[in-house]
């Protein structure tokens, strides 16, 4: 077996267990082979195999419980019984990263607006050299707010800010949804109601309410139709 065949880059401790096991097996087998294959090295190799593969059954069960595996590398392929959990974890991490990037873009635009506001404010200040009484200070503060709101409004009405805001909302929504999806298996495992189950029940209740509300109207229409039919019969 080739060296470094785990799922992560060489040296990464979070590789896929069977690959790591295989590397250890190869090393132990080489030691057994080079050790002369006597009874002592055979026993040691047998103990190694029991230890090495003792956890295989446990790892199979891991897939049926929602325990969080160690955070995998973002692009690590998901394999084995915990692949669903690993992919969920990767999606949460990716959404979080997108959210942080979107927030950084917003922050950058905000900072640009502040810089523009500060330039405008300083130019206004230099043209008004009044003594700084409390009233003058309030006036200066109001002037700063005017400059800040004007610069912000120019930026906020622009394409870049709207796009960055929309990206932030989308990334935050994705992160919320992925986080909720990663928690849902815990509720299933504990036999607690999940959000999906409650939503499903809510929709059934809603449908029943709508049917119940529609019934009197339908009854009214049926009664009116019967009365009309009776009138027609009487006329005949």
């Amino acid at each position, binding site marked *: 077996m080739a060296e470094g065949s785990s799922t992560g880059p060489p040296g990464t401790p979070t590789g896929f267990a069977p690959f790591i096991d295989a590397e250890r097996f190869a090393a132990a087998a080489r030691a057994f082979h080079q050790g002369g294959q006597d009874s002592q090295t055979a026993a040691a190799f047998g103990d190694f195999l029991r230890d090495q593969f003792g956890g295989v059954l446990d790892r199979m069960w891991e897939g049926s419980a929602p325990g969080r595996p160690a955070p995998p590398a973002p692009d690590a392929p998901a394999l084995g019984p915990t692949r669903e959990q690993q992919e969920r974890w990767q999606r949460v991490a990716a959404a979080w990263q997108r959210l942080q990037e979107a927030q950084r873009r917003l922050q950058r635009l905000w900072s640009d607006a502040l810089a523009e506001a500060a330039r405008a404010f300083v130019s206004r200040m230099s043209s008004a050299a009044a003594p700084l009484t409390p009233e003058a200070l309030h006036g200066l503060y109001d002037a700063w707010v005017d400059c800040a709101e004007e610069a*912000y409004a120019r930026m906020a*009405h622009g394409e870049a800010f709207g796009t960055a805001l929309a990206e932030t*909302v989308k990334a935050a*929504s994705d992160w919320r949804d992925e986080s909720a999806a990663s928690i849902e298996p815990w509720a299933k495992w504990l036999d607690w109601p999940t959000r999906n189950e409650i939503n499903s029940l*809510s929709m059934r209740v809603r449908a029943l309410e709508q049917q119940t*509300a529609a019934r009197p109207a339908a009854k009214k229409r049926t009664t009116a139709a019967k009365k009309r039919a009776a009138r027609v019969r009487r006329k005949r």
Partner: protein
Amino acid sequence: MSAALYAALSAARHCAPGCSEKDEVWRSGKLRLYRYRSISGLPSAVPLLIVYALVNRPYMMDLEPERSLIRGLLSRGLDVYLVDWGYPDGADRFTSLEDYLEGQLAGCVEEILKARGVAALNLLGVCQGGVFSLCFAALHPERVRNLITMVTPVDFHTSADLLSKWARKIDVEAWVGQANVSGDVLNQLFLALMPFRLSHQKYVDLLRGEPDRARIENFMRVERWIYDSPDQAGAAFREFVVWFYQQNRFVRGGLEIGGRGVDLRNLELPILNLIGARDHLVPPASSAALRGLVRSSDFTTLELDLGHIGMYVSARAQRQVPAAIGEWLAAR
């Protein structure tokens, strides 16, 4: 902060909004319909139903004795009802605009008409409640005698409408998912329209002059109202943003509620359109667009030099708004 201001703010922290006496006359789910007790003898024959927005709470219409639109209307002999939509929770996530309009609002109207023995009432819609009132009047013209719209968005694609510019870019399906929308998040969005003024300057303004008790109490009541933001029922919120903010269906057409077309050209009733000239949330041009979309021959536009919130609580609004509504209704 001075010790005097700190003490004044602390003393005012429990100030409760609401001052006029009212009775709950109907309820449906979380909705409550209130009727305000008359303060001027016999109330007018035609009841006036105030339809407030889903965002924020309707007690802003009756904040305190000196700043109460409702009190002003009562003092002019109007018979005032108010819809309180309540606080939606997780069980309301699938509540749609049809549920709000054809279920809850229609239920309120039927209840009032039955109780008062009249065929039609007057509607006063505020902000998003104005949008609901327009839809209701278009769907049930026989139920509405006169319509008053206050700071109501109609054309959602005017150039000054920052909220709309943002909303048009947002993936609302992803944002809402199958959940409700947090009122706190919405509040942050509203504050982000003018972040320096709304989240900073207004507090710094408190530091000016001596802390006047009435001013501080009013400030605290408004502060409480601003941050008392109900979550929004997911389905209705999604419909509202997509149909109005993104697709501008009042103007472009294609609006349907419960499978029935809503066409503002069906509106032929008398309309009073109250616009805030300094409204940062609903640009004046957005409200003013109503004039060109309806067939009413009796249409009055009243543009006041007020902001969105000032339209209900400013001292100038107390002098101008109830009087304008009272006189306009009295003439009809």
